[in-house]
Each structure stands twice: as C-alpha cells, then as structure tokens.
C-alpha cells in the first residue's frame, strides 16, 4: 500500500524538519568553518591549505587529514589580543544586558499594565524600529552622539556643559548603541511574561498585607524570572559577537571579538585564524546557552 507508506514517511518528516534545517544551515556550515580553522593560511585562492581533493581517492583524504592541525588555536591562546577580546566581549555583553534589563523591565512592566486597548499600539511602537535597517539606525546614533551632534547641541543649549562631550568612539557610545539596538529583544519576552501574569496574584498579596513594593518583589519579580532569563539570553548571546555597533560607535580601544574576527578575515585575510575565532566564539556561547537551558529544565521540573 503506497499511500499509507508515503503518509507515514511524511509524518516522520514533519518532526524531523527542524533537525534537517539545523543540519543543512547550521551543522554543515559549522563543519566547514571548523575545517578551515584546522587548516593553514596560504597566499592562494581560497587562502588556506590543505584542500580536500576527492579525486585523489582514499590517499587524498588521508593527506588532507594529515594537513589539519590545531596550530591556529594555539596561536589564538598564545596571543593575549584574542583572549582579551573574548573577555572584553563578555564584559561588554554583560554590562549591556544589565543596562537593557534596567531600561527594558520598567518599559515592559508599564506596557503590561497599560489599558488593554493601548497594548497593541505600544507593542507596535516597540517593534516599529525593525522596519528600518539596523545599520541606518546605528548610523543615526553617530549623528546624535558626535561632538557637534544633536546630543551635545542640546547639552550646550541647556548650559549643562561648556564644551562638547566626547561620547562617540567611546565605550559609552557602544553601551548606548547596544541598549538602543537590542531593547526590543529584552522588552518582548519580558512583556509576554508580565502580561500573562495573573493580576489577582498581586491583589492576593496586597490583601494579605504586602505593600505594593513588597508585592512586586515577592510575587511579580519571581514570576517574571522566565522572561528575564529569556530576554537576557536573547540580548547577551548576540551582543557577545556584535560587530556593527562597536565598529561604528566604539573607539579603537573597544575590543570585541566580532571586530577581531572581521579584521582577521578581511584585513589579514587569515581565514584559518578567523575561523578559529568563530569556533571559540561559538564555544563561549554554547556554554551559557546549555547552562541556561538546564536551569530552565530544572526549574520547570521543580514547578511541576
């Protein structure tokens, strides 16, 4: 019976679809990057050796495998530049995530508490910036932050400063840019949890004698933790590898691994080293992702 079998095949393929997707667009490219990271740089096209030559048969494959080594990784670990870039990226991502939480939580909270009719409008306003290019929005910040930009003009006009502040090309500008660019990623998951939060739980806390502030810290805050974790993850992970914001708004002292990767690839044309940086970046991020996921799993298990 052909029809049932093909239907059975189809029903087996549907749950497999996300895995197929991951294999085709994540695992295979990652394998290629990993392979390049184990190669040596060469002045050639493509700029690394060895190349896999399948026409050489089993011997060709053996030669190819023999040509792979971990040299790039030892270079990476040996040069403090890369270690510093990685640590600096983690630090910047952490500070930015905290800033995003400080700005995003009150924003999401007031959105969730707004009259029900207003919420879709507020939500649309949060998503609206996505309609323009990320690059253009970051460029716009250059116009705002540069010494003769709008921010300094406003500060001078208000008499708060005597001379323009140097904000552009500093770490401050990077934090401003990151907080601005990633705010929706923090606000949306927070809003989703806060909006679903049962208001009668707050009423119950007040009824039992908790002041509104106590009710917030004992009920709202712990119950919005899944949103805090999700939002922080959604911001922290891409910020670690962020390239555009530090490149456009940061100064030469803003060291981030994404920038290092870019310069290895395009300035130095050292593809193996750049690939190694990419692999390290991934490993750095896989660890927190797995840890978070495990924490989540344990939390839901305990909650059941």
């Amino acid at each position, binding site marked *: 019976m052909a029809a049932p079998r093909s239907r059975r095949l189809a029903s087996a393929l549907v749950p497999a679809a996300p895995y197929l997707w991951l294999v085709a667009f994540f695992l295979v490219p990652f394998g290629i990057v990993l392979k390049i990271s184990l190669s040596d740089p060469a002045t050639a096209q493509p700029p690394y050796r060895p190349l896999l030559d399948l026409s050489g048969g089993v011997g060709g494959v053996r030669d190819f495998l023999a040509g792979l080594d971990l040299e790039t990784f030892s270079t990476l670990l040996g040069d403090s530049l890369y270690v510093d870039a990685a640590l600096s990226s983690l630090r910047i991502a952490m500070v930015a995530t905290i800033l995003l939480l400080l700005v995003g939580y009150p924003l999401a909270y007031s959105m969730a508490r707004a009259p029900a009719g207003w919420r879709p409008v507020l939500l649309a306003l949060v998503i609206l910036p996505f309609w323009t290019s990320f690059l253009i929005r970051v460029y716009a910040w250059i116009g705002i932050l540069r010494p003769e930009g709008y921010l300094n003009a406003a500060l001078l006009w208000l008499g708060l400063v005597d001379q323009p502040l140097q904000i552009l090309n500093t770490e401050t500008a990077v934090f401003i840019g990151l907080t601005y660019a990633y705010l929706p990623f923090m606000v949306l998951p927070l809003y989703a949890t806060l909006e679903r939060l049962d208001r*009668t739980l707050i009423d119950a806390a007040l*009824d039992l004698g908790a002041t509104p502030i106590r009710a917030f810290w004992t009920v709202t805050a712990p119950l919005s933790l899944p949103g805090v974790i999700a939002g922080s993850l959604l911001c922290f992970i891409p910020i670690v590898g962020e390239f555009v914001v530090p490149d456009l708004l940061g100064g030469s002292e803003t060291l981030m691994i994404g920038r290092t990767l870019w310069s290895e690839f395009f300035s130095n044309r050292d593809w193996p080293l750049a690939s190694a940086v990419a692999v390290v970046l991934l490993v750095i991020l896989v660890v927190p992702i797995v840890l978070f996921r495990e924490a989540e799993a344990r939390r839901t298990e305990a909650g059941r």
Partner: protein
Amino acid sequence: MTRTARAVGAVRRSFAPWTDPAAVPLIRFEGVTKRFGDTVAVDGLSLSIYERELFCLLGPSGCGKSTLMRMLAGFEEPSEGTVTLGGQDLAGVPPYRRPVNMMFQSYALFPHMSVEANVAYGLKQEGLPRGEIADRVLEMLRLVKLEPMARRRPDQLSGGQRQRVALARALAKRPKVLLLDEPLGALDKKLREETQFELIDLQERLGTTFVIVTHDQEEAMTMAHRIAVMDHGCLVQVATPGEVYEQPASRFVAGFVGDATLLDGEVAGRTDRGLWMIRSAASPEPLLVDDPDEDLRPGQAVAVAIRPEKMVLHQDPPGPAAENALAGEVWDVGYLGDWTVYRVKLDSGALVRVSRANTSRFVDRPVAWEDRVHVSFAPDAGVILTD
C-alpha cells in the same frame, strides 16, 4: 390567625442580631454607589452585616455583588457613600491595611511558593517572629487537614486541596472579616456539598464574620444566616434563607431563588376569613391567598407566586373542598429521581410548575403527557407580589 407564631423555612440556630435594635453592625454600607465610567455597578446601597454572621451576597453575574465585595477588600473605592468596619471609615484605607482577608474565586495561590509559604505569606508581611509564623501555619494546615501537603506546590494539588490552601491562607491572619468570592464555584457537585458544611462548621468554630459572594442559590441557602439578593446594583431583599424562599419580596427574587409559578391578577377583595381574593385569568373562581400584607387595594395589579412543591397535582377533578383548583393539561414531565417536575398548561394558557416527591418506587397511575389534570394549592402556599 396563628401564622405569626409559625416559623418561616428552616431555623438553623438562634442567631439573629439583625432583629436586635441594640446590636451594632460590624460592617456598614451607607448610600454606597460605584460607577465605572457610565455604568453603575452598585446603586445607592445600604447594608449592615453583623459580627459572627455568615452573610451571602446572591445575584446573577453583573449584579454588583463582586464590586461590593471588592469595596470591602479595598480594591475599589466607592464613588459615593461610606463603608465602615467596626466603626472605622474605610475610605482611603489600602487593602494591605484592612483587617479583612479574601479568598479569591481563582484561589490566586502563589504558584512559585509551597503550600506552607503561601499560608505564611500574610504572617510574614505582619513581621511576626519566625517561630510564631511556623506555629500558626501548622495550626492553619491542621484546620484544613492539609499538613501532609505542606511542602507541595499549588500545581501538585487537586482542586479541593487548593481551595483549602486558599482558605487557610486567608484565615491565617485571623481577619475580622473573611470575604469568599464564589468559594465553591470551581469544585464538582459532591465536593461542593461537603465543603459547604465544612465551611459552616469552620465559621461557627472560629466566629469570624464570613461574607460570601455567589450566584448559586443552593450554596447561599445552605450556608447563610442571611442572604442579600442583588439585581442591577441594588438590594432586592435581605433576609434569612427561609424568608427569601417562602416570602420572596419581588418577582425577581421568586424567580431567582428556587422555582416559582407566577399567576398575574388583581385584588378583588377579602373573604370573611381574612384571605385575599385575587381575580386571575388562571381560574374562573378568584384565587384565595393568605398573605399578611394589609395594604392591598381592590383593583391593584398583583402576582401570586407559588412554589412547585406546594402545589398538588390531581388526576381526577378535586372535590369542592379543594381551594384554588386550576384545570389544565400536562405539558412536560421531568423525572429527577427524588422529584418529578410537571409543567401543566392551564386552560388560560399559563404554565404552572408542580413537583411531586417520589415517595414510592412504584406508581399505579402514572401521569403522562397531555393528560387532563387539576392543580391546587392551599391559601397559605401562595405569596402576593406587588411589584
């Protein structure tokens, strides 16, 4: 007439501070109105509730009973009028400073805390010493028989257990008044009946004033000392369950609490026995009703309300001694096991509900659809409604 000496409905216990003019009410609503925008949820309502009373606010959804309760809890402020508790005006007192606790309809248990922590929550806010909190939590869990569940989380409990946690949590602070919003609404029928009696028992032991909001008349009838029947933001009747059932104040109450047949008519006069004669399309003879109301005028439009169990169904024409005999045809028969409910279509076109207790397992002459029957009721079975 001996009727004044007779009691109305069932009398549970001798507790009736509302009949004592010297008694001071614990809770007082005075001219309370609550508006939400253009809608009036509670409309100029005055009500007194006494200490140790088990008081039920009964009404259909949207009648304002929940708003009334939320004003007691402090979640809503009256637009007009005052609410006092133990003589203190509650205006501007936030919920967390009121000696009132509430059991929420959804129970509103904190999902991230254990049963223990839920019960302890209110005590912690009071800043009681740790040892005392632990003692009181244990006492409360014992009271609701949930000690073995202390470490569980709410989602590991059954509906009935959750209801008891909510009760323990609300009682832990020993409030002057416990508000219960549809306390049994989420339980199934068997558990609901059991819990009703448990709540009555608990209330009697603790002596806490209970104010229960419900739309379930059976729940109100079983539990309350007094019931306030509400409709459209107004009180329609405030009385004991027996009075509400046997002497409904209006057509709304007669129809909302239990079933009743309403026969429209007008006052024709009074017999020498003191019975009111009501001329009605339902019967060629005037209906005779024994009603204490002395202020009826001849010609006044009224309705006679009769409860189904107080009507008698005759398969043969009743003798001339039967009062208020109405002829008709069986329209509907509903067999409920303990009762059988008949709907009889009178010759005037009016539908009358008659119920009969199935005291025997066997029936010699079953009543069938379209049978020609007669229905009668005693003069004191009917109530005259003037609204």
